[in-house]
């Protein structure tokens, strides 16, 4: 196992190199650069831009150099822990990201946990009570959640929340706590606000999860080993949890790879609509304004998380399913 993990970690290096190239191409792909978009932005409201300053900035950040050199500079910087400079914010990338990461992690983890907490019981119920009214009802509910685009849901919820509860529209907390250190009141304010994004981001995911859990369980429920377990006198619920459920976790675990980066980037559009203080909107903004180091380094961070996530997922998969772990005897 240890050798396997080491080997997997080795493999990560070329992957990350490839990813960094890919990311670099992606952020370079749209024509123009940040400064051009900055000038346009200024012009849009009629302002003039100081072209001299722009030219100097261009030169300073090496935009006049050929792409491979810029790529090397960027990667080299990252290796040294320097994630570059955000033109938009005019400060080092690491300072920009700052707090947002924590809020994002908060929102996403809460969402993911809520999703799981809801999806698994419902999925199990649906599978064991296939075609009951409960199954149909829950399916319907979940699918409606799936069918309504997040931003519509966001708008409606936001509007209703404001009309009914007077919760301020959007954001993760009342504005007055924005610059304050964490306090009980701030926390309460966050709690007051967090349910909207959690519902919005969570519904689609929950519905999907329910359907998958249900489907996978249905595949397993009729296996002989389930009967064996019942013959032992186990409670049907325990049977379910220990055997079919564990078997059907397979799909779930192979998904971990994408869960990790999701925790950080998660549900950008919803976050934009709700103007949450998370990293998603920042990333989109950076991409659109071609704030390339901010976007690039952030993407690289996400990529790193994914790679780790996939590793974790592979290891977990192996731990979960001995058939995968112990694949040795039969070589084709």
């Amino acid at each position: 196992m240890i050798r396997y993990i080491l080997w997997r970690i080795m493999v990560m290096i070329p992957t990350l190199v490839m990813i960094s190239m890919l990311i670099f191409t992606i952020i370079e792909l749209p024509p123009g650069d940040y400064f051009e978009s900055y000038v346009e932005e200024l012009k849009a409201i009629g302002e003039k831009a100081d072209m001299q300053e722009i030219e100097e900035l261009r030169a300073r950040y090496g935009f006049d150099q050929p792409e491979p050199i810029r790529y090397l500079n960027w990667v080299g910087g990252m290796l040294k822990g320097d994630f570059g400079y955000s033109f938009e914010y005019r400060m080092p990338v690491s300072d920009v990201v700052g707090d947002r990461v924590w809020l994002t992690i908060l929102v996403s983890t809460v969402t993911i946990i809520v999703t799981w907490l809801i999806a698994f019981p419902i999925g199990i119920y649906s599978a064991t009570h296939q075609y009951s009214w409960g199954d149909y009802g829950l399916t319907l509910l979940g699918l409606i959640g799936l069918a309504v685009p997040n931003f519509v849901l966001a708008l409606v919820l936001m509007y209703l929340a404001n009309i009914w509860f007077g919760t301020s529209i959007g954001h993760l907390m009342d504005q007055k706590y924005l610059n304050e250190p964490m306090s009980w009141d701030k926390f309460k304010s966050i709690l007051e606000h967090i349910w909207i994004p959690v519902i919005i981001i969570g519904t689609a995911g929950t519905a999907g999860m329910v359907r998958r859990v249900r489907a996978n369980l249905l595949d397993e429920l009729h296996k002989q080993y389930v009967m064996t377990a019942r013959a032992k006198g186990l409670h049907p619920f325990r049977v379910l949890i220990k055997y079919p459920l564990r078997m059907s976790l397979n799909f779930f675990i192979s998904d971990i790879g994408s869960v990790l980066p999701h925790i950080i980037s998660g549900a950008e559009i919803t976050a934009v609509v709700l103007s949450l203080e998370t990293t998603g909107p920042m990333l989109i903004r950076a991409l659109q304004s071609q704030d390339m180091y901010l976007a690039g380094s952030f993407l690289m961070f996400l990529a790193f998380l994914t790679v780790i996530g996939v590793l974790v997922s592979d290891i977990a998969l192996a731990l979960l399913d001995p058939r995968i772990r112990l694949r040795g005897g039969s070589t084709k």
Partner: protein
Amino acid sequence: MENNVQPASLTHFVRQEPFDPYAVETDRGGTSDLDQASQLRLMWWRFRRHKPALISGILLIAAYVMILFVEFLAPYRVHTRHMDYIYAPPQSVHLFHEGSFVGPFVYGMSMKLDMVTLQRVYSEDTSKVQPIRFFCRGENYHFWGMVKSDLHLVCPAKEGQMFLMGTDRLGRDMLSRIIYGARISLTIGLLGVTTSFVLGIIIGGLAGYWGGWFDLVTQRVIEMLHSIPSIPLWLALAAIMPADWSPLLIYLGITFILGLLDWTGLARAVRSKLFSLREEDYVLAAQLMGAGSARIIGRHLIPGFMSHLIASATLTIPSMILGETTLSFLGLGLRPPITSWGVLLTEARTVSIVALYPWLLLPVVPVIFVILAFNFLGDGLRDAADPYK
């Protein structure tokens, strides 16, 4: 422990009925066409018993047939504007006028512009009875952009209007727009899902079945695709879509992109599932029969988690239909004058619409219906393919 009376041993019992050793063979009361039935046929029989699935299937087929005839079905053309009926709310269909039966009709509407709020206030004008006509001559259209015609399934009364789902900010009939939008929305989902499934199953299947280098490489590719959130990918891919592409090409391009980005999750699921399934004896049996990888994956392994696949497919379709809304949000993707449900929904993306003109959110309804239908259909298919049923 032997505190009970030991029961007597068995008395010798012999059944007296005549014995027919061949009875077993006639036991199965199957009809002969059952015996002959192919696997597909059997599945169809089983599918038929699943009523919601059957209904969903019929509905979906109807919907897909419908998109061939949208020009005929829609009361108006997509872009027909009614400048006097901007933001008109849905009209209700009545049958009785002042107690007497008239057949389906709508009342005329009169509009007053509230000069303070600049809101158009519509009221029903019960003096104007506008019967709805069927199979009628209405607006001209070019059927599939070619044959000229003016036959409609339903039309408003002559000189009248009929906005059963209201109108939008240019006074366009929402019902007609939704009907037209089905053309793109229904196909984009299917095309996208097909792309992603073909890729996902083939690549994931081979990776899971072969393992080794192929797996290693595809996993890394997937990792790479996974590791970049879809939005930057979209932005980048959209940036390279040539500026002078026609709307149709852009539509195809986007479908393809949606599909292209979606296969990775499925491929990973397929792969990890195959990892465990390929150790089964029946796989070995198939190998020993000389079956090729494609056959083993396609006929032996994939059916083993059909449920998951069907569930994924039914879950992917909505995300494809709605995927373009996300794209539109970023200023990519489809745009008017192309009409799809996603486009219609993105046009309704402000709170003021939710508050003032909620009927503009109606395109959600067909989306819900389609997704429900696909789901029940999926359920039905799953059961039909499930031998344990």
